[in-house]
Every structure is written in structure tokens, then in C-alpha cells.
């Protein structure tokens, strides 16, 4: 069977499975639609949370980013997992005890104010919408590369599938579909990794392979990789830093508290029956996430080695990488390179006209290296490799069988679709419940609300699809913004709502606005106001990363600090919190008396 046919078969089978589950798990009530009836087993919920969390970015892009960044890429690994410790201890059990459907509902009740819940709705909509654009683009890329249809057709098919199970199944349908999607994506990620680890180190477990010796030698794989990259002018793989160590620290904090503050993740903990289950469920979620996240660094390092080995075979031997015959002759490049050149994710430009590929760091500050490179007639790096290739082309680079390539396609789609569905649910419940039911149409019946929820979701799918087809120029920058918003506004306000009995609405709202404000200011200074080109004002704040070398992506943590400081300052200047609210906080802190989640006040 051809690669194309196998891919259609594997992807078709997984899609049939998702739709089948959706029909089996239709939602009949708002409780089932919003929180799957509040009766999901913690392990099942953990698996669904893992699939919800691991997006196209985790599956497709993360290993590539680690591959480029080396040691510094660990900030994604620690940041996107460490947040679950915060979530399990500081937020999940208390929000579950609180017993409502949505995050804005918590804000509305705890801070006794509709405006507080509105601020939360806006943060939620901005964070979720920016996220979903990335998922839809991911669906498009996976379809166009693997199934030979156009990018646009891919997005339409993706929209149709999500529509079917999200609109009819609600949270119940989404949860059980996500369990299936988790299995598909983790298998698809692990199998190529096992093959490659076995091939390079003889150890089938990638997590151990990364710490093993190269097969047939007594040189450790990471040591060899360090030698290869330094030979080609790059910094050491196991030591390279993103800007500086402080920036890595702050960036990790931002991702951790951003993870704990993302509404579509928090809402997962409303679906379990008890407070006790909410605590354990975060642990199960992290186990399932760790399966992929501990494999990713192995994929990153091993794929990098395979790539260098393909382009400049001399790196593996004692021969000089500068020898004229060392670079790969372009006309003899392997088929996978030709296939990926078509997508534009891989580009070759023969700068010195020798017909061979020179892939090295032409911005190296090492004068000796630069001298050798120019002596060898190298006139700049000739190969540009998009980070996404590291995972998507990984099985092809390692020459694995066709069914493995097909599996990776199905896995990428599972990752993108499961996250898109979770986000759509968060968006539609914010609209139908927090906006319509709570603010504009309080007399809506349950049936009416369920219908409104489904219509809101259908509209969100269309908007998400449109944004996927016409991605705004700022799409890439906004994912960082989603974390920045969650970290600087939602996380601190939730924390203070639970851990401070005296925090009042004035303090919380001033804190949120100040946190978001300062974060947006720093991000816009670098990337332009609302990401519009030419409106950046980075020189006014003293040049790029002027705040102690901290990059705009990492700034959410600083925003959170500002949030806390402003909130406590304003609280001390305004009227104290009402007694019944302080009593409510006391009730939220103990597990006894937790009831099934209900949407009513």
C-alpha cells in the first residue's frame, strides 16, 4: 500500500472512532453539556485533561523548539508541567468545592460583582480564541502534508469533525473522545521515538536512550551531540541559554502560573464527583502528560543528531566538517527533503554555488570557527529548517516504515482536534452561561440554555475555522499572550479569592487590570500595538528586553507580581469584604459538604 493510502486508512479509522464515541455519549442536559454530569472518574478525567492540554503546539512544535534551544528548551518542559502542581494544590480542589460550571462564575460570586465576572469572561475569550487559531492552523498543516489535500480543505474537514462531536456531545462527548485521542497521540509520539532511540543507542526507552552511549561506542549521545554542534559553530546543546539564566527562570514561572490559570484547563476539574477526586485527577493528568513530555527531549536531541548526520556525514567520523566533500550534494538529497521543500518548511539556498549543503551557525562569535568556515569557502548557512519538521518529518529522517508516518499524521490531528474541542467548550459556556444566562436573559430555561450553548459553539467553530483559513499576522505572537493574560490576571485573582479572606472586589479588579496592563504594555512595546507592524515602541522603554533582559513572552510572571502588589494596596484603601463572602471562603476551604456541580446561584 502506498504512503498516501495507509495515511487515509489510519486517519479515517481514528475519525470514525471519535464520531462513534460522540454518538454514544450525547449530552441531554446543561449539566452534561458543561461538566459531563460531574461524574467522570479521576483517571478518565486525567486522560481527557492531558489530551485537552497537549495541543498541536505540544505535539508538533515543542520538540522542535527544544531541538533549537537545547538546554534552555527545558523551560517549556518544566513550565508546562510544573503548573499542574500549583493547580492541584492551590486551585482545583477549592474550585471544585465551590461547585459552579465556569471560571467567570467564581469571579462573580467571590468578588460579589458582575463586572468582575465580565473581566474574567473577556480574559477567557481572548486567551481561548488566540489558542484556537493555532489548533486550526495545525489541522491544516497536518492535512495538507499527509493527506495531499489543500490546507483549506483540511481545515473544513477538521471543522466538520469537531462540530459533530462537540456540538452534540458537549463536555460529555468531548471528554470521552479526548480519552481516545489521548491514546492515539501518545502512541503516535512514542513509537517513532522508540525506533530512533533503539537505532542510535540500542536502548528502546527514549528517556533512558537520551542518557546512554551511542551504539557501538563509549561516547554518550549528549556528549556526541555537544561535539557536533560546537564543530558547526553552535553553542553547546546541554548548556545553551535563552538570553540569560534570569530570563529562563522568569519564563518558566510565567508558563507555570499561566498553565494553572488557563480557563479551559481549570474547568476540567469541575467534571469530577468529589474534591478528593479533583486533587488526584491533576496527578493522573500529569502522569499522562509526562508520557509525552519526557519523550520530547529525546526526540529533540536525537532528531537533531539525525539531521546533522544527513546533511554533513563528516560530523559522525573523525573527518573534518570543513573538507570540501563533507556537505551533502543537493542533487543527491533524500526524498523526505524534497517532500518537505514543497511545504516551504525546509528551504535550501546555494549561497556559495558549490551544489552542496552547508548547514552551520553563520552568526557564531567564535573568530577561529568563522576563519575556518570562510577558508572552506562557506558563504553563510544554506539550509533553513522550520521547527515543526523535527516531529513531523522525524520518522522519514530516521527511515521508518510508512505506517509510522501515517500514525504521526493521525497523532498530530488528534492533538489539534482535542484541544480545539476543549477550547470551544470554554468559549461557548462563557457566552451561553456567563454572558446570556447571567447577564442578559436570566429567565432562560435549561432547554433554551442548552440550545444557546450549542449555537454558541457552532458559531465559535465557524469563527475559529475562518481565523484558521485567514490567520492574522499576529497569530504566532498571541499564544504567548494567552499565557501572559492567564498568568497576570486569572491566576493571581483566583489565588487571592481562595487564600485571602479579606481580598475585596476593588482590590481584585484593580490587580487584574494592572497585571494585564503592564504585561500588554511590555508585549506591545516589542511586537507593536495589537501586534500591528510598525507601532512597536521598544526604543521608548530602552531597547529590546530592557527589563533585566526578560523577553516579552516571559513577562507574565512580572505582570502577576504587579497584580498581587496593586490588589493588596487597593484592598487596604477600600471598604472591607462583606461577612457572607468571608464565610463563603471558609466553606470553600473544607471538602465536607461538597455537592454535585450545579449552575444555579
Amino acid at each position, binding site marked *: 500500500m502506498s504512503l498516501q493510502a495507509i495515511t487515509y486508512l489510519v486517519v479515517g479509522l481514528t475519525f470514525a472512532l471519535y464520531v462513534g464515541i460522540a454518538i454514544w455519549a450525547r449530552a441531554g442536559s446543561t449539566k452534561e453539556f458543561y461538566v459531563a454530569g460531574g461524574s467522570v472518574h479521576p483517571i478518565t478525567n486525567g486522560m481527557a485533561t492531558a489530551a485537552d492540554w497537549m495541543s498541536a503546539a505540544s505535539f508538533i512544535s515543542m520538540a522542535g523548539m527544544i531541538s533549537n534551544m537545547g*538546554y534552555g528548551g527545558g523551560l517549556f518542559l518544566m513550565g508546562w*508541567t510544573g503548573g499542574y502542581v500549583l493547580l492541584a494544590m492551590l486551585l482545583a480542589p477549592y474550585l471544585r468545592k465551590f461547585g459552579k460550571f465556569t471560571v467567570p462564575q467564581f469571579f462573580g460570586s467571590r468578588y460579589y460583582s458582575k463586572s468582575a465576572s465580565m473581566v474574567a469572561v473577556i480574559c477567557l475569550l481572548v486567551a481561548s480564541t488566540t489558542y484556537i487559531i493555532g489548533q486550526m492552523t495545525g489541522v491544516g498543516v497536518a492535512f495538507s502534508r499527509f493527506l495531499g489535500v489543500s490546507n483549506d480543505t483540511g481545515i473544513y474537514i477538521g471543522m466538520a469533525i469537531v462540530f459533530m462531536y462537540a456540538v452534540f456531545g458537549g463536555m460529555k462527548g468531548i471528554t470521552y473522545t479526548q480519552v481516545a485521542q489521548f491514546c492515539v497521540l501518545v502512541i503516535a509520539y512514542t513509537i517513532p521515538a522508540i525506533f530512533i532511540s533503539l537505532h542510535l543507542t540500542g536502548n528502546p526507552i527514549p528517556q533512558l536512550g537520551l542518557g546512554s552511549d551511542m551504539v557501538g561506542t563509549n561516547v554518550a549521545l549528549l556528549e556526541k551531540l555537544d561535539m557536533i554542534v560546537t564543530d558547526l559553530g553552535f553553542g553547546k546543546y546541554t548548556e545553551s541559554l535563552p538570553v540569560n539564566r534570569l530570563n529562563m*527562570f522568569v519564563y518558566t514561572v510565567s508558563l507555570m502560573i499561566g498553565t494553572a490559570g488557563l480557563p479551559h484547563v481549570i474547568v476540567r476539574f469541575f467534571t469530577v464527583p468529589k*474534591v478528593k477526586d479533583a486533587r488526584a485527577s491533576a496527578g493522573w493528568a500529569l502522569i499522562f502528560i509526562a508520557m509525552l513530555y519526557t519523550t520530547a527531549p529525546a526526540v529533540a536531541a536525537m532528531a537533531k543528531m539525525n539531521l546533522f548526520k544527513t546533511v554533513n556525514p563528516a560530523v559522525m567520523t573523525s573527518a573534518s566538517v570543513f573538507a570540501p566533500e563533507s556537505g551533502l550534494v543537493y542533487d543527491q538529497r533524500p526524498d523526505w527533503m524534497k517532500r518537505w521543500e514543497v511545504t516551504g518548511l525546509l528551504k535550501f539556498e546555494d549561497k556559495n554555488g558549490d551544489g552542496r549543503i552547508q548547514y552551520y551557525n553563520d552568526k557564531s562569535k567564535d573568530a577561529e570557527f568563522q576563519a575556518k568556515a570562510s577558508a572552506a569557502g562557506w558563504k553563510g548557512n544554506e539550509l533553513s529548517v522550520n521547527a515543526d519538521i523535527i516531529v513531523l518529518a522525524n520518522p522519514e529522517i530516521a527511515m521508518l516504515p510508512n505506517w509510522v508516518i501515517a500514525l504521526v499524521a493521525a497523532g498530530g490531528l488528534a492533538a489539534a482536534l482535542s484541544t480545539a474541542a476543549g477550547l470551544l467548550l470554554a468559549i461557548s459556556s462563557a457566552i451561553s452561561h456567563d454572558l446570556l444566562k447571567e447577564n442578559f436573559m436570566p429567565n432562560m430555561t435549561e432547554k433554551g440554555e442548552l440550545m444557546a450553548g450549542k449555537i454558541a459553539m457552532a458559531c465559535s467553530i465557524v469563527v475559529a475555522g475562518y481565523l484558521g483559513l485567514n490567520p492574522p499576522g499576529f497569530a504566532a505572537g498571541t499564544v504567548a499572550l494567552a499565557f501572559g493574560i492567564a498568568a497576570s490576571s486569572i491566576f493571581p485573582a483566583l489565588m487571592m479569592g481562595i487564600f485571602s479572606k479579606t481580598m475585596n472586589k476593588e482590590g481584585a479588579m484593580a490587580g487584574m487590570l494592572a497585571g494585564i496592563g503592564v504585561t500588554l504594555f511590555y508585549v506591545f512595546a516589542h511586537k507593536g500595538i495589537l501586534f500591528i507592524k510598525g507601532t512597536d515602541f521598544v526604543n521608548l522603554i530602552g531597547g529590546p528586553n530592557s527589563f533585566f533582559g526578560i523577553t516579552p513572552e516571559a513577562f507574565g510572571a512580572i505582570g502577576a507580581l504587579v497584580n498581587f502588589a496593586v490588589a493588596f494596596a487597593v484592598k487596604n484603601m477600600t471598604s472591607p469584604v462583606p461577612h457572607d463572602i468571608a464565610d463563603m471562603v471558609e466553606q470553600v476551604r473544607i471538602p*465536607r459538604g461538597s455537592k454535585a456541580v450545579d449552575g444555579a446561584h
Partner: protein
Amino acid sequence: MTTDGVAYWKAVLGLIRNVLIVWFVVSYGFGILLAPLLNNIHLGGYPLGFWFAHQGSIYVFVVLIFVYSKVMGKIDEKFDVHEN
């Protein structure tokens, strides 16, 4: 709040503090701040600081959540505030 309620909350905050100390030390301590120092020690083919940043922290995080969850269950029962 009753005396029991105060003692319960104190026990909870104590547990959270202890978990956060370990959480901070493995990721920010071993994985970032002390990484250059720890890289002189090797765990198989891994420099130790690199291992904490790319592997070790994640394993510790998983263990931490389950330990927290278990100890919280015990605290709940001790103060008789667990769910029925």
C-alpha cells in the same frame, strides 16, 4: 472560624509550603540556578543539571501531586472534614 477550623487550615498551608519547597528546589534550583554546578556530575550520559531541566523535574512533579493528595486525605480525616 472554630479552633479546629484554624488548626485544619494551618495544617493545609504547612503541607502546601513543604510541597512548594521541593517543587522549587528541583525545578528552579537544580534545573536552572544550580544547573552549571550540577552539570559536573553525570547521571549515565546525562549532565545532572540538564537532566533535572529536561526529565527529573517532571518525575518529581508527578510524585509531589500524589503525595499531596494522599496527605491531604489524612488531614481531612484527622479534622473530620472529609467528604462522606
